[in-house]
């Protein structure tokens, strides 16, 4: 019986990182983090270009998705990838609302068993929202407009879920 027992081996303290670092006495981590954040924000100009190009590419992929058939399948893969990249980047550069809309769209795609015309309609609303944010250059959470936009998307998804999908 003893031989049937699953073997578990523990390896203690294998962390080499600990031996490579030292505490900076009298230094506040906040200053270090602020310096690193400053270094990231130097890329915000590049992100603005990426954002604009992504919205154009997303609109083009969405047009393919609306066509149906194999074109839809191909467009959906491209669309999902573009939305995924954008949701991962936008929040870092002061566009959390873009990340929220992108996240909602990706989750909707990921959790949909099939993408038919009803699902395409819901995804299209997310794409329209991103276009509107890009055109109006809505930064941050978008205030009351951003809240209204997110609530609108949530209601659409809730209605879709209540109706039992397509």
């Amino acid at each position, binding site marked *: 019986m003893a031989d049937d*027992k*699953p*073997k*578990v*081996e*523990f*390896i*203690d*303290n*294998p*962390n*080499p*990182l*600990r031996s*490579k*670092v*030292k*505490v*900076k006495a009298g*230094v*506040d*981590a906040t*200053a*270090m*983090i*602020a*310096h*690193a*954040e*400053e*270094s*990231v924000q*130097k*890329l915000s100009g*590049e*992100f603005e270009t*990426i954002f604009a190009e992504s919205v154009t590419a997303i609109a083009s992929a969405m047009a393919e998705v609306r066509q149906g058939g194999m074109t839809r399948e191909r467009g959906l893969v491209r669309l999902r990838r573009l939305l*995924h*990249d954008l*949701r*991962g*980047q*936008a*929040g*870092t550069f002061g566009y*959390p609302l873009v*990340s929220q809309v*992108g*996240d909602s769209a*990706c*989750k909707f795609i*990921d*959790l949909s068993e099939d993408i038919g015309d009803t699902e395409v309609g819901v995804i299209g609303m997310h794409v329209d929202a991103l276009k509107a944010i890009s055109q109006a250059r809505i930064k941050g959470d978008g205030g009351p407009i951003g809240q209204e936009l997110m609530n609108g998307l949530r209601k659409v998804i809730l209605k879709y879920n209540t109706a039992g999908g397509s």
Partner: protein
Amino acid sequence: MKAYSLDNVSALVVDDNRFMRTVFVNVLRGLSIRHVAEARDGHEALEELRSTPIDLVVMDWEMEGMSGMKLLETIRSGKRGINPLVPVIVVSANTIARNIIQARDAGMTEFLAKPVSAASLYARIVSIIENPRRYVRTGSYFGPDRRRRFDPDYVGPRRRVEDRQRTSLDDLDAVGRA
């Protein structure tokens, strides 16, 4: 939070998105890590890990070609002369629970949700430094202990095979005494 001097740390950033790699490199260099290597995909990452002593891996989970999961499993397998104990921070914008559970069960050290910030990435590095977990090897898993806490007063259900065996033997014993 303590300020750590990270000058001597060697980090590897793996992401198939060029811009995201630049974001990570800027954060890590901004945190004073001097040596930051970059890999565009899993194959480049494995080559870098084989040829350079790396102390920390920051990797994207959803990559085209070799997936993050395949890369992490290969790292933890210790094959190809790669250090299987290297701490790995998995980064993903996909925060659906099943995605995080997959990364945990493949042996990640920490999970970081995108969008990232310097503060969130530094917090994960500090967690690795200050709360190192022992590694566990079972028939189906190798990686950091997935239990982050040990509570001697735990009274919930015991799910380990050995616990279940013990419980059933205790039950038999109780029946025998009745």
